[in-house]
């Protein structure tokens, strides 16, 4: 399985994500710079967390307009699997590969803590190793994770069953407690929590591993 991680200037979870992939899947992912023209052939592409371009203007806005994102969009449309974590999620919404937008947390403060999440469905590429309705514990660390979409968009997200994770309790003002989201085709996932920081019980929780294991599971079967 080929995993590619895209690094933008200001990305800071690239190494953590690579380590998690290595630890959980035993696969050496490829980290590429957003200045490359093309994304190598990949089974899974990850846009990791961080502050791409300082998160200036709006989180993820500048990164979403990088030329490499044309190739990502193309691959996304072809069905390649893509995960955007935290800033990666913001980049994907700014690129409109996922609906809605991530506003400032309603507290207006950065929030760093472990949160409980509910797995909405386990029939996707990213969640087959979880149970539907299972509650898991994964850290968040963001300033702009307050999911917003207009009513029509929100209705269609719900109607299409595109919500991947919901916060069990409200944390940042997200509509419908949305913590993670699929595109309509279910090959693109964006999520605010950091599964790559939850792959070793010594750091508090291992509940994030299964995002990666699910992907591998799908690949090998």
């Amino acid at each position, binding site marked *: 399985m080929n995993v590619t991680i895209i690094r933008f200037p200001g990305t800071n979870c690239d190494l953590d994500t690579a380590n998690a992939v290595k630890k959980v899947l035993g696969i050496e992912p490829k980290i590429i710079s957003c200045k490359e023209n093309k994304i190598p052939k990949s089974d899974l592409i990850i846009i990791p967390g961080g502050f791409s371009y300082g998160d200036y203007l709006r989180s993820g806005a500048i990164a979403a307009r990088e030329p490499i994102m044309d190739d990502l969009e193309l691959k996304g449309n072809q069905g390649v699997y893509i995960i955007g974590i935290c800033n990666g999620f913001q980049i994907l919404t*700014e690129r409109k590969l996922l609906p809605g937008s991530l506003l400032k947390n309603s507290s207006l403060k950065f929030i760093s803590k472990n949160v409980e999440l509910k797995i909405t469905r386990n029939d996707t590429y990213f969640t087959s190793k979880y149970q539907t309705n299972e509650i898991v514990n994964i850290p968040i660390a963001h300033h702009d994770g307050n999911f917003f979409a207009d009513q029509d968009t929100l209705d269609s997200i719900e109607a299409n069953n595109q919500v991947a994770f919901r916060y069990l309790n409200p944390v940042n003002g997200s509509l419908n407690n949305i913590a993670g989201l699929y595109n309509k085709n279910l090959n693109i996932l964006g999520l605010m929590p950091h599964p790559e920081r939850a792959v070793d019980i010594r750091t508090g929780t291992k509940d994030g591993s299964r995002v990666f294991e699910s992907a591998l599971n799908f690949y090998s079967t």
Partner: protein
Amino acid sequence: MKAIVYIRLKTEVLDPQGQAIESALKNLGESTINNIRQGKLIEMDIEAKNIKDAEEKIEKITKSLLANTVIEEYSIEIS
């Protein structure tokens, strides 16, 4: 030429910053101020043949980068 782009959250988008300012003012005893909303302004120098040309250019970069039209609306001023 100078250009300013004013960017505001769409009315239906909640503005927690505006709300926070409003409640801070209420705490300070200021109750005659309401409906506070916070937006951005982006100023720049632009080289262009004429105002129209400049306007077009600014419109283009605003749509493609400066504003996120899912949540924001904008207006442009050139001088």
